[in-house]
C-alpha cells in the first residue's frame, strides 16, 4: 500500500512517485511486447506503408517541369502568364539549352507526356523539338568553324576551357551542372568528370563554360567517354557565339586559344543573331501557341493540385479552377458509381447473409458445422475461378439464359444481358464478398444466448416481436462489422469488375489500374487512390460517430 499525503503525489514504498515506479515496472513488459511485433511492423513499414506513402505523394509531386526545364521556368517567372503576350526571346534561348540537354538525356518525351495530361498536343511538340533542337544556330556554327578549324577540334576546346596549367579552377560550375543533370535524369550522376574550367575563362565566357561543363559531365558520366576526346555539343558553340556577341572583353585574356577567340569575336560580329523563337517555331509551330506556354508556366512549381483537380473532373486554367468540358468528365461519375454499387453489394450481402448467419448460430452443432463448411467453401476456391464461373453463368449464351429460354420464359432473340454491366458486377461481387458478411454476423449472433428470445416470449412477445425487439438489436453489431468489412473491400475491388464489369460495371479501381499500367499517369492514379482512401476513412469516421466502433465485433 502506498501512502497518500494531502500535498504531494502518491509515493511508492521507496519514496519515488508511484506513477514513475509503475512506468518503470511496465517498461520491460512494453519493450517485450514491442519486440514481438517489431518484425511484422518493420516488414509492413518497409514493404507496404512506405511505398504506398511514396505512391500517394506522387499525386501532388510535379518536379518534372522544373527539373527538365529549369532555366526556362526561371525566365517564365518574369513573364505574366495571364495576358496575351508571348514569352520573350530570353525564354526561348533558355528553352534551347534546356531542350538540348533533355533531348540528350532522352527525358523530353516524358515531360511531353506529363504536360499532355493538362493540354492535349504538347507531347508531339516536345517530341519533334527534341529531334531537331541541334539544328538551332547551324549557320552561325558553320561560320564559326569557317573562321578557324580549331572550333571543331575537341582538344582545343578542352584546353581553352581548362585554361593554363595551374590556373585557378571553378569547380562549382561543374558541380552545379552535375546536380542539374542528376535531377533531370533522376540518377546519382556521381563519378569523376576529369574536367574543371579555369576561373578566368568562366568569368569571361559564362554561358560557354556552363554549356561545356554540362557537356563534360554528361560525356564523362552518362556516356563514359573522355571529355578531351569528344567534340563539344552544338550548345557549347552556340553559347560561345552568344558570349562573344554579347561583348566578352577579351583584351586582357592571354590564356590558351586567346588568338582564336579574338578572331572569332571579330568574325562573328557581322553574322546575324540566332533567332531562337523562330527556330522553335520552325520545329513545331505549337511553340507559338500561348496556351501551351501558359500550361508550362502553370505546372512549373514543384507541387501541383492538378492531379487532384483532374481526379474530380476539374482543371486549372489561368482563370482559376474550372470544371472540365462535359465530354471529358468521367471520374465523378465513376466515384458515384463505385459508391452506389458498393452500397448495393453491401445491402444485398446483409439480406442474404443474415438468415444464413442466424441458422449457423442457432442450428445444432453438427448441422451448423456442415453449413459453415459450405459458407467457407468459396474461400478455398480461387477468386478468378469464381468470377469466371459467373461469366459462364450469366452470359447471353450462358447457363441461366439457356435455362430461361428452354423454359420458355425468355425469347431466344431477347436473351437477358446480365454480364458486362452493373448487374453482373453486383451479382458476382455479392457472391464473392458474402462470407465476409456471414462470419462477423455469425460470431456476434453465436454470443446471443437463446434465453433472451425465450424471455421475450414468456413476457408475451410474438415470435416476430421477440426477434425484432430483442434478437435483432443485439445482432446489429454483427451487421455493422460485416458491412464495414464488405463495403471497404467492395469499394476498392478490382478483379471482379474488371472481368464481369464491361464498361458500365467498372469501379474507380479499374481506372486507377489503367493509369498505373497503361496510360502511366501515376500522378492521377495516386490522386484517385488518395481520394478513395479519404472516402473510406471519412465513411469509417462517420460510422464511428453514428454507430460507434465499439459496437463492432469481429469475433
Amino acid at each position: 500500500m502506498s501512502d497518500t499525503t494531502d500535498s504531494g503525489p502518491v509515493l511508492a514504498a521507496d519514496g519515488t512517485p508511484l506513477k514513475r515506479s509503475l512506468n518503470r515496472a511496465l517498461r520491460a513488459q512494453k519493450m517485450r511486447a514491442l519486440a514481438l511485433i517489431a518484425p511484422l511492423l518493420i516488414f509492413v513499414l518497409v514493404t507496404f506503408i512506405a511505398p504506398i506513402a511514396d505512391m500517394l505523394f506522387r499525386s501532388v509531386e510535379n518536379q518534372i517541369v522544373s527539373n527538365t526545364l529549369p532555366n526556362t521556368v526561371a525566365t517564365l517567372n518574369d513573364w505574366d502568364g495571364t495576358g496575351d503576350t508571348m514569352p520573350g526571346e530570353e525564354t526561348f534561348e533558355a528553352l534551347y539549352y534546356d531542350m538540348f540537354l533533355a533531348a540528350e538525356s532522352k527525358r523530353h518525351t516524358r515531360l511531353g507526356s506529363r504536360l499532355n495530361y493538362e493540354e492535349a498536343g504538347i507531347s508531339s511538340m516536345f517530341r519533334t523539338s527534341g529531334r531537331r533542337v541541334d539544328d538551332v544556330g547551324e549557320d552561325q556554327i558553320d561560320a564559326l568553324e569557317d573562321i578557324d578549324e580549331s572550333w571543331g577540334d575537341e582538344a582545343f576546346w578542352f584546353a581553352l576551357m581548362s585554361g593554363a596549367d595551374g590556373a585557378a579552377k571553378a569547380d562549382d560550375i561543374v558541380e552545379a551542372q552535375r546536380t542539374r543533370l542528376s535531377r533531370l535524369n533522376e540518377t546519382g550522376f556521381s563519378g569523376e568528370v576529369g574536367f574543371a574550367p579555369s576561373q578566368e575563362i568562366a568569368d569571361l565566357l559564362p554561358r560557354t563554360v556552363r554549356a561545356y561543363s554540362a557537356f563534360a559531365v554528361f560525356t564523362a558520366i552518362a556516356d563514359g567517354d573522355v571529355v578531351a576526346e569528344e567534340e563539344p555539343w552544338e550548345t557549347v558553340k552556340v553559347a560561345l557565339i552568344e558570349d562573344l556577341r554579347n561583348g566578352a572583353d577579351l583584351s586582357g585574356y592571354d590564356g590558351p586559344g586567346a588568338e582564336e577567340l579574338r578572331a572569332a569575336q571579330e568574325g562573328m560580329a557581322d553574322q546575324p543573331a540566332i533567332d531562337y523563337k523562330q527556330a522553335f517555331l520552325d520545329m513545331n509551330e505549337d511553340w507559338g501557341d500561348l496556351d501551351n506556354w501558359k500550361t508550362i508556366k502553370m505546372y512549373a512549381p514543384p507541387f501541383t493540385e492538378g492531379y487532384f483537380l483532374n481526379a474530380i473532373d476539374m482543371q486549372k486554367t489561368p482563370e482559376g479552377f474550372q470544371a472540365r468540358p462535359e465530354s471529358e468528365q468521367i471520374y465523378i461519375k465513376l466515384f458515384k458509381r463505385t459508391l452506389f454499387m458498393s452500397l448495393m453489394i453491401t445491402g444485398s450481402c446483409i439480406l442474404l447473409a443474415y438468415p444464413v448467419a442466424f441458422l449457423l448460430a442457432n442450428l445444432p452443432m453438427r448441422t451448423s458445422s456442415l453449413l459453415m463448411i459450405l459458407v467457407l467453401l468459396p474461400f478455398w476456391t480461387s477468386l478468378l475461378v469464381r468470377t469466371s464461373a459467373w461469366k459462364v453463368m450469366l452470359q447471353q449464351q450462358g447457363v441461366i439464359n439457356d435455362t430461361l429460354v428452354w423454359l420458355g420464359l425468355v425469347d431466344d432473340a431477347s436473351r437477358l444481358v446480365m454480364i458486362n454491366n452493373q448487374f453482373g458486377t453486383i451479382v458476382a461481387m455479392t457472391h464473392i464478398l458474402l462470407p465476409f458478411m456471414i462470419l462477423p454476423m455469425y460470431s456476434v449472433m453465436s454470443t446471443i444466448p437463446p434465453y433472451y428470445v425465450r424471455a421475450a416470449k414468456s413476457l408475451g412477445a410474438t415470435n416476430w416481436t421477440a426477434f425484432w425487439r430483442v434478437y435483432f438489436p443485439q445482432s446489429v453489431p454483427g451487421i455493422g462489422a460485416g458491412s464495414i468489412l464488405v463495403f471497404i473491400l467492395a469499394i476498392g475491388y478490382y478483379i471482379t469488375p474488371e472481368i464481369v464489369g464491361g464498361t458500365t460495371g467498372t469501379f474507380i479501381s479499374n481506372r486507377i489500374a489503367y493509369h498505373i499500367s497503361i496510360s502511366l499517369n501515376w500522378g492521377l492514379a495516386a490522386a484517385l487512390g488518395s481520394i478513395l482512401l479519404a472516402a473510406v476513412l471519412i465513411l469509417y469516421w462517420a460510422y464511428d460517430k453514428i454507430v460507434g466502433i465499439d459496437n463492432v465485433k469481429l469475433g
Partner: protein
Amino acid sequence: MADTTTGDAFVEFERVQKSYDGENLVVKDLNLSMPKGEFLTMLGPSGSGKTTCLMMLAGFETATHGEIKLDGRPINNIPPHKRGIGMVFQNYALFPHMTVAENLSFPLEVRKIGKADREAKVKRALDMVQMGAFGGRRPAQLSGGQQQRIALARALVFEPELVLMDEPLGALDKQLREHMQFEITNLAHELGITTVYVTHDQTEALTMSDRVAVFDDGRIQQLAPPDELYESPENSFVAQFIGENNTLEGTIKEIGDDICLVELDDGELIDAKPVNVSKVGDRTTISIRPERVEVDTAKLGENAHTLKAEVMEFIYMGDVFRTRLRVAGKDDFIIKTRNSADQRRLQPGEQIQIGWLPRDCRALDAV
C-alpha cells in the same frame, strides 16, 4: 406415486412424458397438481427432469405425451407468449440493449397497454423490489442482486397468475441468496401468485416452499411440505437428498403395521418404522437423522434401542458438534449434538452407547 390431482387445481400435469431423442425419457409419467397461490419447488439433482418440466409449463418444450392444464385449460398447443406466465431465468435474461424501465415496459408494450398505465405499472413494480431509482440504468450497470430484482419485477409487472423461476438465485453469493429467498417468498405470498420454483439447493427449497417436489430420474420421488419431506422421507433417495442422513443396511426380520424388526448386516437387531418395505426377508436401508441420535441413552426411555459405537472423529462447528462414529461396521455414521452447557465433547477412540426412538428410524427401500 401418489395421485395428487385435486378438483380445484390451478396447474396440472397429467401423465406427462418428455423425450428429446425418441430413445430416453427425460420425464417419466409426471403427475402434479397445484392449487392457486401455492409456492411449489421442484428440487432435484441436475438431469432429473425438473427444468424440462418447467420449460414444458412455460411452453418452450412440448410434452411428448400427456396433458398440462392451466386453470382447467389444456395448454399443450398454446404458444408461450399466449400463456401469460411470468418467468425468471437463471441468468436473468434482462435485455442488454434496453434500460431497466424499458425492460419492464416490454411485456406491457406487447400487450398494447397505454403509455400512462405502463409507466405507472413499471414504477410500481420497481418500487416493489426497491429499485425505484434505477429505471434509467442498463442491466450491465447493475450488480447481480439488483439484476435479480429487476428480473423478478419484470416477471411480475404484467400481473401473471403463475410465475416460474428457474434457479433464479444460482448466481448470487450466499448472503444475498438468503436475503432474496426471503424477499421472493414474501412477495409471492403478498401478491398471492402461484409460483413454481426450480432449484437444486435443498435449503432454498425447504425454506421457501409450501410444498417441495423432489425429482429424480424423471419422476417425482416425493411431493410434500418441507417438514414432512425432511422428517418422513418416503424413500432412500429423498432421505439421502434432503438434509444429512445416516444409513444402515439390513434385512427385515419381522414386520408389523407400525414397527418392524431389522437385522443389521453385523447381526444386531433394531426396531424401525416400516415405510416402503413390504415383507419379511426384504433388504432395507435404515435412515436416521444425525440430530435424532442420542448419546445420553438414559433420556430415551425403555423401548429405545441402543447400539455400541466407537468415536472416530470429533468436529467442532460452533453451534453444534459433529461426531463421526463407527456403528455396525460402518464408520460414516454422523451424529450432531447441540453445543449446550452440559454437553460432553467425545474423544476419538472412546467407546459409547448410542440410541434413538424407533419412530425416528425409518426402514426404506434398499439402495
